């Protein structure tokens, strides 16, 4: 009995217990899962050198498979000199573990990030956080020691010591050490102390010691470069000379008595935009070599199998991309510049900032012209090493007998010559000779700073002679040109009482302007048409409001019509019966034509109300059609026809119908109307 009672209690009444039990079970499960999450962080290598890539891994260990989102990395202090971390992929492994409770499944998800270190020091990366099933977990902090480049890479010549970064060979520290000084990216810069505005050439070259490479078991001919990371050149204006080539062309070159195979990777001309210390981040190149020593697959966390699997396109294209390949990442060191201010000594007052090694030349398209007829095109070209696009207009002194028709058109070009960038800027002047004779285009000049000589200088063209003959179309001046020192008004004095204080026009004022507008001042007031004012909003709101009002009224009207039609239909029977009562009174009036007329009107009125049509003009065919559509009985429909035809014929027949006929017609009408009232 007791057991039965308990059973009843459990199964019947307390249904609210069940949801609570489910929730409790879920919480228990979650809490048991929550208790089994472990997050660890590590960095490889933890002792690195400047220019080296660190792989920062976060391992999230869970019992049972869980949805684990990407960890939230801590923010790196900008003073550490770490490049922003790149996500290098993730991998999962699981295993079974025997515990006291039995077998359990252990999942570990590895998240890998990589970044480069560019400054020496000891840095502690704070904890990384991971959220799993609503709970937050933190890893351990990770310490990284960064020292300066290995000063003694035994293979490196003395002149390169301290200016190259060792290569990275992921997961193979021995090979990495062996390749130190054998593979590197060498930045070659014209000068690390340019002046502000001076364009500097910066080139990156891949240098390979073939012998050292061979000793390490790698074959240079199997090299396949797959990724290039070009630095950003922030705070520089950059102009690419050579982009990274599709195929590396190696040439032999000697550094400190040691022979290297050198291939150009990238060349750029940079112009600093500010003075002081500026730095260009490292240039990185990822390469793959076939290793004679290596067997099996390399599992690289960020450039490896996930992106270039053996059966992928790259594997198919390159027969050497086999399981024996080894990845080598070569980086340059950051290139530090110290940008100097231009010297203030001997700086011309009108110096406009042009810096470079330039030369200037000028030429005309014709040496002979007619005054006031022909135009002469003067082309001035400034060419050389430096950013010519920033060059100002050359200074032009007064040209006697020549009129400059418009401001010069400029164009800039550049070309690569012997691995150098040569810029040229061309100015085209359109001149018109206004006086006949032997004229001379005076020299045009420009102040520049030559960073090679470290001096300011003046570029100047040679004067150009023109032979100008008198033209046939001599323009008659409305006002005689003023002699030097006099204004137009002084040279052309007016009558007494007229102009006495005319303002002389300035020499640079454009000629032949159209005259002023006279008359009433048509002022424009700010308002609706200017897009201002509250009235604008009223006008913008009015059309939609009109449409809205129209829609509302239309809808109300439609619903009223529908109601009216419905009421009319609903009252059709009542109205018809009332009408029939008055028709009945005519039965004994002795006027059968009047009787049948009223009977027809009552019948048609009924059908008009039922069918929402006007009774006048309502035809028998319309009534039949409508009732057929309403699926009325065919007999009833036939009787309607008979009745209406009888009414029509009785009205116009010369033989007057008798009382019995009238009574029969009346009865038939009443019957039909009462039947069809329900249809």
């Amino acid at each position: 009995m007791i057991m039965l009672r308990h059973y009843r209690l459990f199964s019947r009444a307390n249904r609210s217990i069940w949801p609570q039990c489910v929730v409790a079970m879920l919480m228990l499960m979650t809490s048991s899962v929550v208790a089994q999450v472990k997050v660890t962080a590590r960095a490889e290598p933890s002792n690195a050198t400047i220019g080296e890539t660190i792989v920062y891994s976060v391992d999230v260990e869970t019992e049972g498979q869980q949805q684990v989102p990407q960890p939230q990395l801590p923010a790196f202090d900008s003073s550490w000199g770490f490049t922003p971390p790149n996500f290098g992929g993730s991998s999962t492994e699981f295993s079974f573990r025997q515990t006291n409770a039995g077998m359990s499944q252990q999942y570990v998800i590895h998240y890998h990030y990589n970044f480069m270190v560019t400054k020496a020091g000891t840095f502690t990366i704070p904890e990384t956080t991971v959220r799993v099933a609503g709970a937050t977990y933190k890893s351990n902090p990770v310490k990284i020691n960064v020292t300066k480049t290995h000063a003694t890479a035994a293979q490196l010549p003395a002149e390169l010591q301290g200016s190259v970064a060792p290569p990275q060979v992921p997961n193979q520290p021995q090979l990495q050490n062996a390749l130190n000084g054998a593979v590197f990216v060498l930045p070659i810069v014209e000068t690390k102390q340019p002046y502000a505005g001076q364009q500097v050439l910066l080139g990156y070259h891949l240098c390979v010691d073939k012998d050292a490479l061979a000793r390490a078991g790698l074959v240079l001919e199997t090299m396949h470069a797959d990724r290039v990371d070009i630095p950003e050149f922030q705070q520089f204006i950059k102009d690419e000379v050579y982009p990274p080539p599709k195929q590396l062309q190696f040439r032999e070159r000697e550094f400190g008595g040691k022979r290297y195979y050198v291939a150009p990777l990238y060349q750029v001309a940079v112009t600093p935009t500010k003075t002081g210390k500026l730095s260009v981040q490292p240039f990185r190149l990822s390469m793959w070599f076939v290793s004679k020593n290596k067997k099996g697959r390399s599992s690289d966390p960020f450039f490896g199998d996930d992106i270039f699997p053996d059966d992928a396109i790259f594997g198919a294209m390159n027969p050497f991309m086999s399981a024996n390949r080894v990845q080598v990442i070569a980086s340059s060191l950051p290139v530090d510049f110290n940008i100097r201010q231009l010297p203030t000594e001997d700086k011309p007052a009108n110096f406009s900032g042009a810096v470079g090694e330039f030369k200037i030349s000028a030429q005309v398209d014709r040496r002979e012209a007619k005054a006031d007829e022909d135009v002469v095109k003067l082309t001035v070209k400034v060419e050389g090493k430096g950013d010519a696009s920033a060059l100002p207009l050359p200074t032009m002194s007064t040209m006697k007998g020549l009129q400059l028709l418009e401001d010069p058109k400029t164009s800039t070009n550049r070309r690569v010559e012997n691995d150098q960038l040569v810029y040229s800027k061309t100015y085209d002047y359109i001149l018109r000779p206004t006086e006949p004779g032997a004229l001379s285009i005076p020299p045009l000049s420009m102040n520049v700073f030559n960073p090679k000589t470290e001096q300011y200088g003046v570029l100047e063209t040679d004067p150009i002679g023109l032979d100008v003959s008198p033209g046939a179309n001599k323009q008659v001046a409305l006002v005689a040109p003023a002699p030097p020192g006099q204004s137009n008004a002084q040279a052309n004095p007016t009558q007494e009482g007229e102009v006495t204080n005319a303002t002389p026009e300035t020499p640079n004022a454009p000629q032949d302007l159209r005259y002023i507008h006279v008359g009433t001042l048509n002022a424009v007031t700010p308002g609706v048409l200017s897009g201002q004012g509250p009235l604008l909003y009223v006008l913008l709101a009015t059309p939609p409001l009109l449409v809205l009002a129209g829609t509302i009224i239309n809808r109300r009207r439609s619903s009223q019509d529908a109601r009216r039609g419905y009421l009319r239909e609903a009252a059709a029977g009542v109205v018809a019966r009332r009408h029939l009562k008055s028709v009945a009174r005519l039965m004994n009036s002795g006027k059968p034509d009047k009787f049948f007329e009223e009977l027809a009107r009552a019948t048609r009125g009924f059908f008009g109300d039922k069918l929402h049509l006007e009774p006048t003009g309502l035809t028998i065919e319309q009534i039949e059609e409508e009732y057929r559509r309403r699926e009325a009985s065919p007999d009833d429909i036939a009787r309607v026809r008979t009745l209406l035809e009888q009414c029509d014929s009785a009205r116009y027949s010369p033989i007057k119908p008798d009382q019995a006929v009238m009574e029969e017609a009346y009865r038939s009408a009443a019957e039909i109307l009462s039947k069809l009232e329900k249809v």
Partner: protein
Amino acid sequence: MVALIRRMGVNVALATLVFLVSLSLRSSSAMTMTEANQAFNEGNALYQQQNYAEAYHVYSGIVDERIRSADLYYNLANACARLGKTGEAVLYYERARSLTPRDNDIKFNLQKTQPAINQHKPFVLSVPFIWLKNIFSLREWMGAFLAMFLLWGVTHASALLISNRFTAKTMKAVAVIVGVAALVVGAFTATRYYDHYYVQHSVVMEPNTSVFSGPGEKFTPLSTLPEGAKIRRLNFNDSTWAHVTLPDGRRGFIQATKLQSI
């Protein structure tokens, strides 16, 4: 009682409308139009006497009273051009052009006065759109748009209210046509409005104005602009330096005191 309330409501609505209209028509200038006309004629007389400096002062005085007129700006620009003030000339020609974009005198004189750097060719496919947008002033576009929009509202409401089917259908067709036209005109109006109020075009007022790569003279000079060069000013929270886009698309910084907004 209901009728009284309805009447009061109508009166309130009418009074509000009148108030709003009067607000929008209110003039913000202390100078009356008669005085402005007198001064304008005086300036014209001085110009005719070739007394450009005095004419410049008179015209400037009217402009300072916030009187906006295409003829006033044009005449002032002419006086500036005669006095060699290229920057101001271009500024006032541009202001006159924004009010009467089809005036050939303004176009001609602006062409003569402005430096070559201002004659920048836009992208070829956008030329017809830009031409059409600029052929009418903002006021003209706004007027056309408001008229079409109101017409659309009236025709659409009529189509809904007219009981005659044929007339209603005709009105509906007219409403659709006018509606589409209003949309197109509205798009141009919106672009013009945006250009007028949100895009800050300015004119360089001093010759050989340097453009730097940053907001300061210690930055690298990128270019030198002649007086009268028209540039577009970008948003930048610094009252001393203006971040600008040059006609050839490059960006740089210019001292804000050397610019004046169109």
